[in-house]
C-alpha cells in the first residue's frame, strides 16, 4: 500500500496572522510558519495504518516556498517514508485551480493507492483542494471524514454535515480528507528527527510536472483589493458581587435583545 499525504505549511494560528495589504498574500514576516495541525492529523492517520501494516509506504507531498523544508521534514520526523516538495516562484499566489493541478500532477508522479489530506486548511484555503485533486485524477473523493477505515481495495468512513452523518465507501485509488475529529499528530522524537535527515527528499518545479503556471488561456481567480478592519476594543468588565446576573440582564434589556 502506498499512501500519499498532502501537507501544507501555514502561519501559526497562535501568532498574529496578517495579510500583506499590497499583495493580498499571507504576510510571512508575522506568525511563524508551521505544518498545519489538520495535516499533522492526516499524517498520523497514514502512520497509524503503516504501523499496523508493515511494508506500507507514506510519502508526503507539499507545494510550498523553498523556505518550507523544515516544516516538510517534520512529517518525515513523525515517520513518513519520503517527501516530494514542489517549489517554483511562478506558483507564488497560485489560485485554487492551479494549486490542485500541480498537486494532482505531483501525486501522480509519486504514485499512490490512496491520498489523505486535511478537510480545511487554517489559512483560508477553503477546503476544496482534495475534491479538486480527485477530479483532476478522475477518482472518487471522500471528504470531511471523522472516522476512517482503510483496506487493500477500499476506503470507508463517516462524514458529518449539518444535516446528518453519511456513511461512504470508495474503491481505491481515491482521495480522502479527514476532519479534526481524528487523533492529533504524534510527537517527533530525537531519533525520528535524526532518521529524517537520511530519508528521500525530492524537490521539483512546475515544468518538471508538465504544468505551465502562466497559461493565458486559463482563467484565474485574482485578488482585487484587501482592507483591514479596525480591531475590536474591550468594553465594561465587572467582578461578580452577587448581582452580576441582574446587571447583565439590565444591560441586555437596554440593548433591546429580548
Amino acid at each position: 500500500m502506498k499512501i500519499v499525504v498532502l501537507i501544507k505549511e501555514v502561519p501559526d494560528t497562535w501568532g498574529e496572522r496578517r495579510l500583506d495589504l499590497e499583495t493580498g498574500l499571507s504576510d510571512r514576516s508575522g506568525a511563524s510558519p508551521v505544518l498545519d495541525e489538520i495535516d499533522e492529523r492526516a499524517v498520523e492517520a497514514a502512520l497509524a495504518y503503516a504501523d499496523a501494516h508493515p511494508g506500507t509506504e507514506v510519502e508526503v507531498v507539499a507545494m510550498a516556498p523553498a523556505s518550507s523544508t523544515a516544516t516538510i521534514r517534520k512529517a518525515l520526523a513523525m515517520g513518513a517514508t519520503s517527501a516530494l516538495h514542489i517549489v517554483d516562484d511562478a506558483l507564488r499566489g497560485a489560485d485554487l485551480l492551479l494549486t490542485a493541478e500541480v498537486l494532482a500532477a505531483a501525486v501522480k508522479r509519486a504514485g499512490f493507492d490512496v491520498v489523505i489530506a486535511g478537510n480545511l486548511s487554517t489559512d483560508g484555503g477553503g477546503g476544496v483542494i482534495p475534491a479538486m485533486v480527485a477530479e483532476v485524477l478522475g477518482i472518487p473523493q471522500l471528504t470531511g471524514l471523522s472516522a476512517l477505515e482503510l483496506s487493500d481495495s477500499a476506503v470507508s468512513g463517516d462524514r458529518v454535515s449539518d444535516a446528518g452523518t453519511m456513511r461512504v465507501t470508495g474503491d481505491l485509488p481515491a482521495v480522502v480528507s479527514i476532519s479534526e475529529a481524528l487523533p492529533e499528530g504524534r510527537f517527533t522524537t530525537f531519533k525520528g528527527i535524526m532518521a529524517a535527515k537520511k530519508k528521500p527528499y525530492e524537490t521539483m518545479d512546475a515544468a518538471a510536472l508538465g504544468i505551465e503556471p502562466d497559461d493565458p488561456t486559463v482563467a484565474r481567480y485574482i485578488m482585487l483589493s484587501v482592507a483591514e478592519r479596525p480591531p475590536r476594543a474591550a468594553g465594561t468588565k465587572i467582578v461578580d458581587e452577587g448581582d452580576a446576573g441582574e446587571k447583565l440582564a439590565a444591560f441586555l434589556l437596554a440593548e433591546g435583545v429580548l
Partner: protein
Amino acid sequence: MGVALVLIEVLPSGALAATAPGLLAAAARVGEPVAVIVGPADALSGAAAEAAGLGAVRVLTTETVPDALTIPVVDALAAAVDRERPDLVLASNAVESRDALARLAARRRLPLATDVVGVDRDELGVVAHHSVLGGAFTVDGAPTFGTLLATLRPGAVDARLESRPLVVDSLEVVASEVRAARIDGFSETVAPSSRPELRGAAAVVAGGRGVGSREDFALVEQLADVLGAAVGASRAAVDAGYVPAAAQVGQTGVSVSPRLYVALGISGAIQHRAGMQTAGIIVAIDKNPDAPIFDIADFGIVGDLFTVVPQLISALEAHKN
C-alpha cells in the same frame, strides 16, 4: 443581464435546504437567478415550485443517482454551464455543494472562490467579497475572464427575492462515468428542537470547557432558549463531548456574525475568536479575570457561570412576564 446559476440542495424530506433563499438573493445581484436542482424524481416538482417562490427565474431539474456521492451533481452542473453559459455559478459553502463546485472547477478549468460573503458586478464583471482571518480583513476578488464559481458562507446574505412564476426545464445530463464514492447510509441529525440554526442566527449562546459536563450544558441551552438564540461551543467543549461538532464556533468550525454572542466558560483562544469577533455585542462570563475573551467583550463578568447564568435567566424571565 447574464445568467447566475444557483445550485440548490434538497433535504432528504424533499424540502429545500435553508440556504436556498440567501443563495438566490445573492446571485440576483450578478444575473438572472436560475436554479439547478438535483434530487429524487418524486421531490423535483415540489422543490422547483419552492425555488420559484424564492425568486428563481427558471428552474433546471434533473434526477439524482441515489447512491453516488457528488459526481451526479457535478455532471448536472457541467450540463447546466454548457447550456446557460452563466457569469456565475453559486452554491452553499456546505460540504456537499462545496465538493460539487470544487470538482466542477477542476473539470471545466474554471476559477473558484470559496466562502464568499457576497457577490456583485462592476464594469468589468463579477466581483466576490470575502471576510478572512476571523473578519480582520476583507478581500475582493474576481476571475480574469469568463464564468466564476463561488461558494457562499451560509447565513451571510439575508436578503430575499420576490416570488416568480414557475418556469421549469428538465436538464439533459450525460453521465460522465467518473468513478464516484458510494453512499452506504445516512442518519439524519435529529432536528434540534425549535432553536435557530447556528449559521445566520441573530443571537448565539456558546459554552466552553468551563461548563464542565454534558449535563451542565443544559444551562447553556436554557439561556439560549430565553434569548431565542442558537447554541454554539468551543472546540474544547466539542472534544469533551458536551455538544456535537456542528456547534463548534471558530477557525475550524462555524464563523458567526450575530447581533449578540454570549460566551460562557470560554477563555477566548485566538482560534475561537476567529469565528465570532465580528458579532455585534459580545458578552463573556469567565472565572479567570485574565481570560483573553475579555479583551473583545462589550460586557464581561468575572465570575462563576453557575451562579451568574441562573440569576440572569430569572431576571430575563421576570422581565418577559
